[in-house]
């Protein structure tokens, strides 16, 4: 796996949990010891600041993307973890970097010495190679018709462009009227690499401005985020990558010996 490994988190439908997952994944990777950069590329409603308690940034992704600043000028450090963050700054007009700006943006990211770069995008369709070509597109969806329909549409667009993508299913509540994982996989060609339960610790962590994996490591959502981070860090191969933890895992390893 080459570094930096760039993961773009996106969805066409809003409010499915892109930012929550981006923030918690980045913090989890940082806690595992990887040199990680988190970029808020949502130009109309940036919200990484609220999740991390860093609302007052006055220079961020836009300045970097439009070539007004270098990467080191816009990086903010999240004090509790040391995670590097490029926050978004509010504006009423979405920006579209020119081809030249995108190339420079991309080059500077590729040349940096981060191991993981996580980009939180805005809802809506973005070309797979806009700004920078990602190594993995994580499409976030909820187990309902509307968001799955748009997730599958986005996946089809990425397929057309030859970009690698996987799905993360958020806010699973296991109700009868939800789509099950197998129903989602019926229409999807890729893998589901993350499953996140509906968990009250998420709205609490947002209200507290502390990411769930820091605020409550034992919460079910946090565990899912850490599991995803492990899976990504190991190299995205679920078969060899999945480590069964706890007593059962110990038992399995005992018999495999």
């Amino acid at each position, binding site marked *: 796996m080459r570094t930096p490994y760039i993961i773009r988190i996106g969805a*066409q*439908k*809003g*409010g*499915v949990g892109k*930012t929550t997952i981006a923030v918690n994944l980045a913090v989890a990777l940082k806690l595992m010891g990887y040199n990680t950069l988190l970029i808020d590329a949502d130009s*109309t*409603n940036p*919200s990484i600041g*609220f*999740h991390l308690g860093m*609302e007052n940034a006055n220079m961020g992704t836009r300045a970097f993307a439009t070539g007004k600043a270098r990467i080191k000028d816009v990086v903010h450090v999240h004090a509790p973890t040391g995670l590097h963050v490029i926050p978004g700054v*509010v504006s*009423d*007009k*979405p920006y579209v970097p020119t081809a030249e700006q995108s190339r420079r943006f991309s080059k500077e990211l590729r040349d940096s010495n981060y191991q993981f770069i996580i980009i939180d995008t*805005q*809802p*809506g*369709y973005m070309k797979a190679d806009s700004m920078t070509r990602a190594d993995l597109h994580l499409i976030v969806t909820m187990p*309902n*018709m*509307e*968001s799955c*329909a*748009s997730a599958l*549409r986005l996946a089809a*667009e990425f397929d057309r462009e030859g970009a690698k993508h996987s799905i993360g299913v958020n806010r699973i509540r296991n*109700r009868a*009227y*939800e789509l099950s994982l197998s129903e989602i996989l019926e229409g999807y060609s890729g893998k589901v690499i993350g499953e996140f339960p509906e968990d*009250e610790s998420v*709205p*609490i962590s*947002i*209200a*507290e401005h502390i990411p769930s994996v820091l605020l409550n490591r034992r919460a079910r959502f946090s565990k899912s985020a850490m599991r995803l981070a492990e899976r990504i860090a190991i190299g995205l191969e679920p078969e060899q990558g999945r480590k069964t933890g706890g007593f059962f895992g110990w038992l399995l390893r005992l018999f495999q010996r």
Partner: protein
Amino acid sequence: MNREKKRKAYCIAVTSLKGGVGKTTISVNLASALSTIGHKVLLVDGSIYNPGIALALGIEDNAEGLRKIMKEGNLKESVISDKRTGLDLLLVDKPMLTVKIAKPNIVRLLDKVKDSYEFVIIDVPHNIPMDMLFRFIDEIMITATPDMPAVAHLPKLYSILRRKRIRSGLIMNAVERRGYDLDYNTIRESTGIDPLGELPRDENVYRCAMDGTPVVLKYRNSPFSVGIYRIAKAVERRQKI
């Protein structure tokens, strides 16, 4: 005020600054509620990149709507009527990613149709520029959930609306009054917007999302429906002023 006289339909844009707070659900249910009360309503899906109304109403056929207008330019033929809700609909069946939208054309066409309806409700996502709508709409209904990411940027939008003299209303959706939710007063103080109404979190909303029926039709007495009817009444009053 000359402008006011010419037009008949009261045109409402339902929008938000964050996704997933309930724009489409509220648009569909508010339109259905107004239609049930006895008004002639046109519901327009403005989410051209990620359409949702056809899915929310379970309509699969003839949902070309806006794309048909682009092709043929005939508004009357692009509108379809839904018998169940009594609504006239202008839908988008698949994302118009590559279509170049001739904004003046759309506005002109919508202007034309205003004569035949009492209410026009447009579901507008936050990631398309709203400027083109400002000339056409009478009121912007902003939806939000009681958490920071959804309300934090509202003051900026509100100041734009005030500058343009556009009437606005705030609807708080999925209200549960948990300890970590923002409360009404905090929102009013930090945004300066008076909430027009609030809608409780309601399991029936999720249930209906799966079978393509508006909540107000299927569960008339569900807390969400009651809230929607209250907002519909408020909208009726605002139309007259």
